[in-house]
Structures are given as C-alpha cells and as structure tokens.
C-alpha cells in the first residue's frame, strides 16, 4: 500500500466525517463555557439529539427534518438542564453527571417505546453527501473537504460566524463578560441569567445537531443505546484545549478525527498495533496536548460558578 493522492484524500475525508458530530458539540460547549456554564451534560444532550432525530426520521421520513428535530431535541433537553445549572444554581459538574446517567436511560426508553426495529427506509443522500460545484473536482482536497455532508459546510460556517461573533460583536462581548465576571456584567445592568440560559440552550442546539448528525449522517438513521460512547466527553476536552476558540475547535476536532481514521487505515495497512491501543490514541494525544498547554491561557474566571447577586457566595 502506497500513499497516493487517493489514499490521502480518503484519509482526510474520513477524518472530517469522524470528527463532525464531536466538532459540532464542541462548538456548543465552547460557547457555554465562554459564558461560564460548564456543560458536563454534553454527552446526554447529544444522546437526546440523536434519539430525537431518529424519531423525527421515523415520523417525517425526511432526513433534513430529522436533523432539525434532533437539533430541537438537543435544545429542549439543554433548556431543562439549564433550568438546573443556571436558574437553580445547581453544581454544574454534579448536575452534568446525573444528567448523563439519566439520558442513557431515558433515550433508551424512548427508543423502545417509540422506535421500531425496522431500519430506516429511504435515501439519506440529501444530508450525507453534497459535492460543492467546481471545488469538489479539485485534486485531493476536493474529495477530502468538498465532497462531504452539507452539515460539515454548515459547521464550518457556524465556526466562522461564532469566531466573528465572539471577537467583534456586542453579543460576543457580553457573552465573554458573563463568563469572566458575572457580577460585573450584572452590575452593568445586563441580564446574566438569561444570557447564560441562552448560551446553554445554544450548546444544546449544537450538541443536538451533533447527536442528530451522528445518528442520521454517520449511522444512517439508526439510533443505538448509548451511541455517543464518550464522544461528549471528548468534545468537552476539545473545547477546552482549543481555548474556547471556534475555529481552533474545528481544527483540534479534525486532528483527532484523523487520528481515529488512522486506526482504520492502520488496520488496512496491516500496522501491528492492537486496536484498543489505537483507540486510546486520541485520548493520549489530547492528554499530551493538555499537559503541554499547562498553565498557559486561563479559563474564563467564572467558569463553573453559579451566579448569585449580592454577597451570598
């Protein structure tokens, strides 16, 4: 096996496809963490998005509608989660752990009650493949980056928009201020809790879309119990060591996607490394990167701290 252009293009394309659900969720996590809300429940939000999309597909038969419904499912679940973490000031880590446990059970129950065992019918092409005109014909990159699910292009657009929003817009300024110093933002007369609720629900939108993408685009519309299998936790790690920068989130996720793709490539190429060790690789790389970052780049100062007006803290 030699490393020709096709192999490389396939490898890159696989990296993109594998990272997409995680990257979407990580973008959402980056936003809520910027606003000071640590969404450990990301895994559960993805699960709710995934099961909602599967239900949506069964009901409407339209993959596009399924993605929309999945996104809505994630947002609705995030709203409930945020009622706890933001409004009721529940400990964000504890709440997230409980939420993830609940989500595994609840989504499985929903599947058993609502979904049948029959695999989805109808083509999913509209959401799995969209060749961009002209660009898709470019050598290597055409196949790698411009012959992808439309959700991927959407993710790139969202990442760029988020970057511009955080950097240049007033909304971005307010969002960052809430995460850095909620008390100061409150003193400026800005509504801290609604802003955090908004950020948390946006996280749900992105995690829901991520879960829906996992289910509809990557798994052909099949919902499997606990199908996220740790992807939510990985997304949290990505958001953090991308230092909450949206474009960097995409890049970090892509690199980890490539690592995952390498596992399969390694198998084809007959590389003699045990599968479990290869599967551990993204986590090892993430760990090394995290250690290398070390103290550099501080987290938003109010990350994980519930907001209380006054001196009650």
């Amino acid at each position, binding site marked *: 096996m030699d490393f020709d252009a096709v192999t490389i293009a396939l490898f890159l394309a696989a990296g993109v496809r594998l990272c997409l659900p995680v990257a979407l969720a990580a973008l959402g996590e980056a936003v809520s963490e910027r606003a000071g809300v640590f969404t450990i429940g990301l895994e559960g939000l993805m699960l709710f998005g995934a099961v909602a999309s599967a239900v949506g597909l069964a009901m409407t038969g339209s993959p596009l509608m399924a993605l929309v419904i999945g996104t809505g499912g994630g947002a609705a679940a995030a709203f409930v989660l945020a009622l706890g973490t933001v409004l009721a000031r529940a400990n964000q880590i504890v709440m997230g752990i409980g939420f993830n446990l609940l989500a595994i059970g609840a989504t499985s129950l929903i599947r058993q009650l609502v979904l049948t065992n029959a695999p989805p019918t109808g083509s999913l092409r509209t959401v799995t493949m969209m060749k961009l005109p002209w660009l898709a014909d470019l050598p290597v990159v055409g196949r790698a980056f411009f012959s992808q699910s439309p959700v991927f292009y959407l993710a790139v657009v969202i990442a760029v928009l988020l970057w511009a929003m955080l950097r240049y817009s007033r909304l971005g300024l307010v969002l960052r201020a809430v995460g850095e110093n909620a008390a100061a*933002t409150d003193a400026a007369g800005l509504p801290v809790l609604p802003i955090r609720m908004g950020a948390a629900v946006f996280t749900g939108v992105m995690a829901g879309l991520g879960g829906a993408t996992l289910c509809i685009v990557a798994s052909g519309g099949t919902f499997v119990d606990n199908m996220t299998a740790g992807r939510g936790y990985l997304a949290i790690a990505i958001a953090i060591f991308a230092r909450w920068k949206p474009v960097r989130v995409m890049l970090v996720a892509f690199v980890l996607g490539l690592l995952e793709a390498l596992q399969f490539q390694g198998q084809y190429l007959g590389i003699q490394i045990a599968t479990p060790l290869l599967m551990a690789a993204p986590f090892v790389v993430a760990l090394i990167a995290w250690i290398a970052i070390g103290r550099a780049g*501080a987290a938003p100062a109010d990350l994980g701290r519930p907001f209380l007006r006054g001196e009650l803290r």
Partner: protein
Amino acid sequence: MSAPIIKCDHVSKRYPNGFLALENVTVDLYPGEIHALLGENGAGKSTLMNILYGVHEPTGGGLLLNGREVRHTRPGDAIANGIGMVHQHFKLVMPFTVAENLALVAKGAARARLRRHADVRTFMAEFGIELDPGAVLGDLPLALQQRVEILKALVNESRILLLDEPSTILAPSEVGALYDTLRRIRDRGTAVAVVTHNVDEVLANADRYTVLRRGRTVGTGHIAGADADALVELIVGRSVATGSRIGPYRTGGEPRLVLAGVSIRPGRGSPGLSNVDLELRAGEVVGVAGVEGNGQTELFELLAGQRLPDQGRITLPKAVALVPQDRHHEGLSLDLPVSQNLLYSEIMRRRYRRAGLLDHAAIGNRAEAMIEAADIRTRSHATPARALSGGNQQKIVLARAMAEDAPVIAVYQPTRGLDVAAAEAVLARLAEAADRGTTVVMISSNIEELIRVSDRIVVLNGGRVTGEVSGAGMVIEKIGPLMTRAVAPGKEGVAHG
C-alpha cells in the same frame, strides 16, 4: 438648593439570615453635591448603596426618584434611572480592555458614541482622565482601574454617582486626585454619594454628610461648619482618643531577624524588592509603611519563609508567627471550627493527640480558654469561623499567632476592614506582645495606626526602603513624602486632571 434627585425613604433591610442591616433610614441626594455617607464597618453604608443600585431590595420603605416612587429590583433598573455605581470591589472584567469594559455597560446612544478608540479618549478627557483605551484592565494599577470603574458608571449619562469606599485602596496623593475628578463630575450637576469612614477626607472634600450607625441614621448636615470631633463621635457613638500613642516608645534588644541587601525581581504589578537592609530587634514594633503594591507582599512572604531572596541574605529565627493580609484565604480556614483554627499550628506540632487521634475534648477546652482570653465573640468553639464577624475572625488569627510564642510576629494590614473597637483591640495586643519582648513587624498602609503603635517606621516605595523615622519623628508630614516622592521606573503614575 433644588429638590432631591433621589430619596431613600424610610428604608429597612433584613437579610435572609435574619440580620437587620438597615432600619428606617432616610437619605436625600441633591444634584450637584458630594454627599458623604459616614459610618463604621457594618453600619449599613454598603447595604444602602446596594439598595439604591438594585443589588438588594429593601424589606421596608422605598426609593423616590424626583419625588416619584421607583423600584430597583436589579442593577438594570437603577442604570435606567440614571444611577451609576463604583463598587468597592471593582465590577470590571480584568481580561478586557478599557474600551471593552466601557462598551459593556454603554446603552443606546452612548454605545454608538463610544464605538471607536478615539471616541473613548474624548469621553475620558471630559473628566480629565487619560488612559489607553486598548490597555487590558488587569495590567493597570488599582488607582487607574478605579478611574475606569468611575468612567463606567458615567457612560450612560448618569445623574447619580455612588462610590463605595473609593479611598481605601488609594495613597494620600491619589485620594486628592480622586476628589478632583469627583468635583468635575459634581460640577456637571451630578449627585455624588461617597461611602467612607475617613472623617478628614470628608471634611476636605464633601458638601454634605450623613452618618449611619448600626443601620440607623444618626446625623446629617452640611460640611461647612461641621466639626471633626463631633463627626467622629457620631460615627463611633462615643469619643475615642484617636491618634493617641499606644504604649511607650521602646528600644529594641538583640537582633532577631536580619535582611542584608535583599532583592527580589519585579513581578506582576509589583516592583519586587531592591537592596533592602533591615534589622529587627527583640521587644520592638517596627512599622513598614507604604502605598499598597510597593513590595510589601514580597517582604511579608520573605518573613513568612515562603520565598527566598533572589539576591542578598536573610536570617530568620526558628519561627515567625504570621498574621496575613487575606484573612479569608490565608489567615483562616473558614469552614473549620473556631477551635481548630485557633489550635491548627499546635495540632500540626503533634499536640492534642491521644492514641494517634485528635483529642477533641482537650482541643475544645484549650480553645474555650483562648476564646475567653482574646474576647472572641462566637456561639461556641465548634462554630465554623465563617459564621463570625470580621473583627472576631481577625482575633482568632491574632490569638493563634500570639499563642505560638514565636520570637517574631509579622502582621500585614491587621486592621483592614475592622471597625474602630476591633482595630483598637488588635493594636493593643500587638503592643503587649512587644512589651513582653516579642519582635513585632507590622506592614500597613494605615499611617496613623503605624505611628500610634510603632517604635520606628521604615517606608517602602518602589521596592526600596526610602527612609526610616522613629520616636517623635514619626509624623505624617515626614512619612507621606517618603511614600510618594520617588516613583520607581516602570511604575505608571496616576493620571491627574
């Protein structure tokens, strides 16, 4: 004078824990005046400010804006009604720039007006303030951060400006500059309310005053014709001999702690120390005066044995008892009971154990005795330190340090945030320790206090010792210039009008 712009009308506030912070308080603020709110710690000044600003809601009474009743349930309501507030603990976003911090609060027209950095400069110039709009807040010295905090309160054309203890963090010369700025603001017709407990500052700068004591108004009037002693009496409720010397002037015995040519490299927002020589002797109180951030923290850390000099030599005795500046994070472990806070160092020295386990009975007994001796007001020795007032918390820290019987005791801002009586008690105990032969080194920015208790005072400025005064030579006129005269290279001065 016209009608009051805002009136606190028979305001009461009871906190959820049952504490009655304000009782039937009425205060008027008029346009174009600087109104001083005077009182001891815990008199209710900050609570009143927070009620005006919508941080807390009153449990009785209300607010009248131009005679019309208004409710401030959150700061947004207060801002909409033209109120700006300068908080004691700045409400600034430290990683943001000056311009971003201003943009954050700006509403409507003001937001459009502050879009570009040049606009921000123009806006600041109106109040005689010159700052780089692109500077990151966290990198600015406290005095400049305070200017930004004031500007922030003015961005939305405020007609009422509230300042909570603005002068405590400033050097004497900086206080003057602060009031220059406030007078400019007043002269634009704004009502300026300043919370402080410094009578001299009020007499020199304010137009009217209101005195609060234990949550009630005990006096109000015009500054013109007001008398310092009378004001002090209103504040503390009895006449205290402020400024009188505590204990005799002592001469030190044998040297116990020596710093020779000690230097520490400059760090974040601090000049470090350069070439400091200091000899502390038995049975004396040595004051270290200086504006905050001139090397005091480094000096205290050296004494505490927490860091080593980059250059020079330090000779420490076997033990140094410590009273740190930050009571809540360093002086105490707030969730531990009073008893374990009092005896922590002794327990760690393998005392109070039985069969390897802690002897809770013995710890309790010993703690009771210490609580009695140090006059610590607590429900029991098992109460968490968190539940105690600031003064009583400081008494715990001091009692523990004293109980260590160390040859040297180092204290850092020991009276900050305490009311007059509690501060007096602390100073008295330090003097007693010196009388017993202990070496006391007291780092403080409160010069009057230093003069009253120290036998000699060294002044730190820009990380250097700029002078030493002793005995009758310890007067503010000498010390003030030593603190403020030479500005170390690289340290930014305060912008003046």
